[in-house]
C-alpha cells in the first residue's frame, strides 16, 4: 500500500525540538522518519537539525540518532551500516539528514566516497539554500541573486553571483542505484520517494528543497506554499534517477510567475528586472535540456 497522509505512521520520531516556526527541514526529517519507521538509525551532522534536536538532556529523536562531524555524515553512516551488518543485524535503515552546506560543500567528499562504495545508506539533503544554522551565509546551493549575510545585496553586487550547484546530477553521475529530487511543497511525492529508497539496497540520495522562513524572508505559514511555487515556476524540478535513467515526475503545463516567486522573499527583493531575466533564461535553458533528455 502506497504511503500517504492516511496510511502514514502516526508515531512521532522527531518531536520536542526547538526548530524555528515554519522550518522546512524539520518537516522533511519528521516525515522521512515516519516512512522509515522505528528501525531508522539517523546520522545528522553539526547543523540546524542537530542544533535543535540534541541538547542534553532534551534529546528529540525517538529512534536511534547521532550527531556526526560536519564533514562526516556519509562516512559515519558508512560505519553505522557496516557495524550493524558485521553483527548480523540487517533490519535497519541507515539514514543521513544533512543540509545544503553539509552536503554540497564540506560533506561532498565523504558522500562521494559512500556512493562509490555503494554503502547501504539513504542520504537526505534538506536544502534551505544557505548556512542557516550559523546565520544565513552562502553555500554552493544558494541560488543566483540571493542575499545572504556573506553575499550582501548592494549597489555594486546584487547578492550571490553564482548559480546553484546541481547535486542531483553530480550524485547521479556516480551511477548511484537511486537518486531523487523533492520539495516539502509536494510532500506525497517525497514520501513515495523515501518509501522507494527504503526498499533499494545500496546508496540512495534524496534532495529535498526545504524553505527556511528565517533565511528566506517569508512568513512562517508560507513554507509549504513557497515550496510548491518553486516547483510550479520551474526553478526546481521533481525527478528521479534509477537504473541509469532520469525520469521527470512533474511537468507544469504552464510555469507560474518567477517574478512573483522571487518577490515574496526578502532575500530576492533587491533583484532588478534584468537580474530576474537572467534567472528566467537559465530556467528555460535547464528545461530545454530536461526536455531533450
Amino acid at each position, binding site marked *: 500500500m502506497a504511503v500517504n497522509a492516511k496510511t502514514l505512521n502516526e508515531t512521532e520520531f522527531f518531536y520536542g525540538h526547538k526548530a524555528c516556526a515554519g522550518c522546512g527541514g524539520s518537516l522533511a526529517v519528521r516525515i522521512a522518519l515516519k516512512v522509515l519507521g*522505528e*528501525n531508522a*538509525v539517523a*546520522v545528522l551532522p553539526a547543523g540546524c537539525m*542537530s*542544533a535543535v534536536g*540534541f*541538547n*542534553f*538532556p532534551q*534529546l*528529540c*529523536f*525517538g*529512534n*536511534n*540518532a*547521532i*550527531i*556526526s*562531524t560536519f*564533514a*562526516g555524515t*556519509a*562516512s*559515519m*553512516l*558508512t*560505519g*553505522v551500516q*557496516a*557495524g*550493524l*551488518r*558485521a*553483527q548480523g*543485524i540487517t*533490519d*535497519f535503515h541507515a539514514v543521513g539528514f544533512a543540509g545544503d552546506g553539509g552536503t554540497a560543500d564540506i560533506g561532498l*567528499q*565523504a558522500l*562521494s*566516497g559512500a556512493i*562509490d*562504495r555503494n554503502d547501504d545508506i539513504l542520504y537526505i539533503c534538506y536544502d534551505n539554500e544557505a548556512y542557516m544554522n550559523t546565520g544565513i551565509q552562502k553555500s554552493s546551493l544558494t541560488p543566483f541573486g540571493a542575499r545572504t549575510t556573506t553575499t550582501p545585496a548592494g549597489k555594486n553586487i546584487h547578492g550571490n553571483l553564482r548559480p546553484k550547484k546541481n547535486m542531483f546530477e553530480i550524485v547521479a553521475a556516480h551511477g548511484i542505484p537511486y537518486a531523487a529530487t523533492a520539495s516539502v511543497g509536494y510532500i506525497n511525492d517525497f514520501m513515495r520517494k523515501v518509501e522507494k529508497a527504503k526498499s533499494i539496497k545500496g546508496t540512495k540520495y534524496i534532495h529535498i528543497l526545504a524553505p527556511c522562513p528565517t533565511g528566506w524572508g517569508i512568513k512562517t505559514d508560507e513554507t509549504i506554499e513557497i515550496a510548491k511555487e518553486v516547483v510550479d515556476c520551474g526553478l526546481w524540478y521533481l525527478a528521479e534517477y534509477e537504473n541509469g535513467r532520469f525520469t521527470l515526475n512533474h511537468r507544469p503545463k504552464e510555469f507560474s510567475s518567477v517574478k512573483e516567486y522571487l518577490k515574496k522573499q526578502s532575500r530576492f527583493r533587491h533583484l532588478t528586472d534584468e537580474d530576474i531575466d537572467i534567472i528566467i533564461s537559465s530556467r528555460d535553458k535547464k528545461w530545454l535540456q530536461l526536455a531533450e533528455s
Partner: protein
Amino acid sequence: MAKKFLSGNEAFAYGVRLARPQVISAYPITPQTIVVEKLSEFVEDGSLKAEFIHVESEHSALSCAMGASSVGARAFTATSSQGLLYMAECLPYAAGGRFPVVMMNANRSTALPWNIYGDQRDSISQLDSGWIQAYAENAQEALDLALMSFYIAEHKKVSTPFMANLDGFVLTHTYEVADVPTQEQADEFLPSFETENKMSLTSPKNLAFSAGPDTNTFFKYKEHIGLLNVKEAVAEAEKRFAEIFGRQYSGLTESYKTDDAEYILITLGSISGLVREVVDKLRNEGKKAGLLRLRYIRPFPNEEIADALKNAKAAAVLEKDISFGNEGTVYSNVNSALHKAGISIPTSNYIGGLGGKNISAEEIEYIFSDLTRKKSEVKFLGIGGEDSGS
C-alpha cells in the same frame, strides 16, 4: 604460538587480527600502509572476518570507525603524520563520545618541509585530544600492544580510544622475530566488545549530543576519569596477558637500572633499545646510568616517573618532538611530575631524531656526560649535520 619474522607493521596487523575487529576503515599513507595491506590480505584469505572499508580520506576513516563503534562494533583504523592531522577533528570527537576505537599511528614527521621519516611530532601534537597514547619499542611489543589496546580501550571503566604508536620505518619497516599467539589464546584473553554506549534497535539512543555550559564540565570530567582509569586497566590487562601468553609488561613505564642510578635518561619508542646498550656500556665503566622508558604518555605516568627519579642526581628527556617556542612536550610533562612530587633535580631536554635524523650511541653517551654538569637546558641534537649539541 608461532615464531615469525615480521616488520613492526606486520606484527601489529597480526595483533589486530587476533583481536577480531568487526570493522576496519583504511586510507593509505606512508609508512602505515603495510598494516592495512596486511589486514586486507587477512580479509581476502578468510582468516579475518571483518568489514573492510576503503574510505576516501583519514577524516572519513575515523568518522567511519566512530560510526561502527556507535552501534557496538569493534573498530580499527590506522594512520600517520598528515593523515593524523587531517582526521584531527575526529580525535576529540571519538574521545568525547567515549568510542573505544583502536588506531595505529606510524610516527612520522609533519610538513613543512615534507618528510616521510620518523619523528613523534604528529602524535604528540594531539596529546590533548583525550586518547590513550602508547609507544611500542619493538615488533613483539607492537603485536602484544595491538591485542592489549582493545582490552584497555574497551574496559568498562575506560571506554576511551587508543592510539598505539610505532616509530616510522625504524619500527614499522624493521624485521624482527616475534611470537604470534594462537587465536584460541587471544580469544581467552580478549572478550567480545560489550558496551551500553551504543545505538541498538531494541533500546534506541541519541548519542554524540550537545551539552551546554551547565552540563559540559560533567562530561569532560568523566572523560578525564576514564583516561586516569587506564593505569588500572593496563595493570589488569598485563597481568592477564602474562598468565595466558607468558610475557610480562611493566605498566605505564619500563625502568632499566634506575634503582641506584645517578643519571637517568627518559625517552619513548624505538630509541630505547640503543639507550639500554649505552647504559650497559656506562655501567661497565662504573658510571651509574639508567633508562626510564615511557610506554604510555596519556595517561601520563606522574607517579612512576617520580618514583624512578627520586634518588637521581639529574635526568634528561630525549624526545623526537618540539613544541616550537618552548621545549619538548614530554620534558614539560616530566618536569610537572617531578615538581608535584617535590623532587628538585636538574633536568635537561634533548630534541633529536627530527625528520628521521639518526640518533647515535655517541650522542646518547654525550647526553649522559652532559648530565653530570647538572644544568637544566634545552638542546637540539644534530642541527645542520653537527654531531651533537649546540
